[in-house]
């Protein structure tokens, strides 16, 4: 669904390439995770996808078409993005907010049709926030706000969903709930691309992990292939061991404390 090929992204006035020849696919029906240390180029890939960063070379294609050839509205109908940062300037009612996800579908008069209304209702339900519809966005908890943002992206009814660090600032229960939601969305047929630095969570939920470091793909594949202590130590520059999640046997990373006075 989303295909990134030899992608290079560089910013003016910044040394080196933020993304330096990255290739991977995010398939329909799968949860693909883009992981890696801070500054490894994860968010730049998302920015290139929505044309917020210029593509120096290589390509990002969504449903078979290069994003640079798609009119902005068509791109938004193909891929829905939940950006990392979003500081809404003023509160807005949750249902109105989710309805903004229909913007790319609105006609000349920007009037919402029955289809739009239904898409909003579905999205609220899918994200489990139907009950919050009448609230204002500034009256939501951190976990509710993230779900509402996901609902807005779902209202776009795009076949691909991209989320940039959707669980930052969330506690364990809310974090797990978001991951379960994303996993079920992937099973329902969406191509879900998740940008996250939470390797352990990603290892338990993702079908494929693409691990980036310094703008390049360090390793990619199923969680069991990617989660290897020697590789991760080299990438993060920190001693680690790999254990197993006692419930499902997924690999889990444990960063070690540095031995003192050695």
């Amino acid at each position, binding site marked *: 669904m989303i295909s990134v090929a030899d992608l290079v992204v560089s910013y003016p006035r910044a040394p080196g390439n933020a993304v330096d020849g990255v290739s991977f696919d995010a398939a329909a029906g799968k949860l693909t995770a883009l992981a890696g240390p801070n500054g490894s180029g994860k968010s730049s890939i998302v920015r290139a996808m929505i044309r*917020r960063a210029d593509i120096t070379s290589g390509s990002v294609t969504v449903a078979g078409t290069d994003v640079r050839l798609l009119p902005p509205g068509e791109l*938004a109908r193909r891929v*829905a993005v939940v950006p990392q940062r*979003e500081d809404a300037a*003023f509160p*807005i*009612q949750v249902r*109105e907010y989710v309805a903004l996800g229909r*913007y790319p579908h609105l006609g000349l008069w920007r009037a919402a049709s029955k289809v739009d209304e239904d898409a909003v209702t579905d999205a609220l339900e899918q994200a489990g926030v139907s009950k919050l519809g009448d609230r204002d966005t500034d009256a939501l908890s951190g976990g509710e706000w993230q779900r509402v943002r996901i609902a807005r*992206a779902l209202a776009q009814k795009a076949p691909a969903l991209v989320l940039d660090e959707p669980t930052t600032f969330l506690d364990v229960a809310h974090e797990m709930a978001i991951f379960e939601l994303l996993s079920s969305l992937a099973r329902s047929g969406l191509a879900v691309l998740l940008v996250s630095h939470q390797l352990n969570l990603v290892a338990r939920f993702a079908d494929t992990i693409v691990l980036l470091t310094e703008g390049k793909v360090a390793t990619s594949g199923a969680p069991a292939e990617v989660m290897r202590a020697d590789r991760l130590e080299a990438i993060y520059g920190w001693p680690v061991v790999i254990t197993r999640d006692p419930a499902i046997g997924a690999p889990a990373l444990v960063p070690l404390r540095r031995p003192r006075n050695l």
Partner: protein
Amino acid sequence: MRFRGWYWLLLIASLLIVATIGIAYGAASVSLGGVFAALHGSGDPTSIAIVRDLRLPRVVLGALVGAGLGASGAALQGSLRNPLAEPYLLGVSGGAAVGAVIVFALGFSSDGAVTVAAFVGSVAAVILALAVSRVGARGSRVDLRTLLVAGVIVGAFANATIMVALASAEPNTVRGALFWMMGSAADATWPRVIWLALSIAIAGGALIYWAREIDVLALGEETAASLGIDAERSGRRIFLIAALLAAATVAAAGLIGFVGLVVPHMARRLGLRAHRQLVLGAALIGATLVIAADLAARTVAAPTELPLGAITALLGVPFFLVQLRRAT
């Protein structure tokens, strides 16, 4: 507060009531019955003249100015994502004042000349602000808030120009220019009212048409981009329309401060959120507020007429203080 459908009736009713009082009350008061009779063209000729030729155009002009400033402020605060954004911060007021001062200094103090010069001055300032923000961006993607900074820079430059110009001007020029800058609905004439009504209908209609975009812009550039909106282009468009709207009001009635800043907050307090409703609500509240302020300006210290801009600021400050108290 949740906005209810019947609040619209309340807003419209308040506007009509305040407008009626504005028409009836003044140096020579006309009874309510007299007002309605005069509007229909019956009753005594003096009342008809007062109502039709003096009060009605003045009240309508005040309403239009308030509506324009309220709508402009609501659109700017949303698209620039800044609760302190207001049309006068964008260089609109400074540019208009420069235009007016130049005309006064050249000795043309006719009404039409000042109006045209103020409009040209504010449009020039807005174009300059857009150019300054582009220079700041150096071709790469910018935060839309740069526009606000650019407006402040242009405004400061305009103020400096005015002070230099006034320092070497005749006392009469200074007085005329200062008086104009205080803002007033006193020179209301029907051609001016019609001209302003047309500008507001066009620019206000455009803002309401693009209101959905303002909603999306208010979420930030990244989110806007993900929804298929070019935030820079669309933000500049809203900026330009809102500024032209404000420029038209400034040309018609001079500088009437605080309305563009405070009125959108009043509309939000009523529970208006989405910009299609917010822009409309701010227009109604702005219209009511300016009519009321103008009524106060011409009656409180009668026969002296107080500057309208000072009255709107006096009404706006307490509201802002209350708002501040709630926020902290």
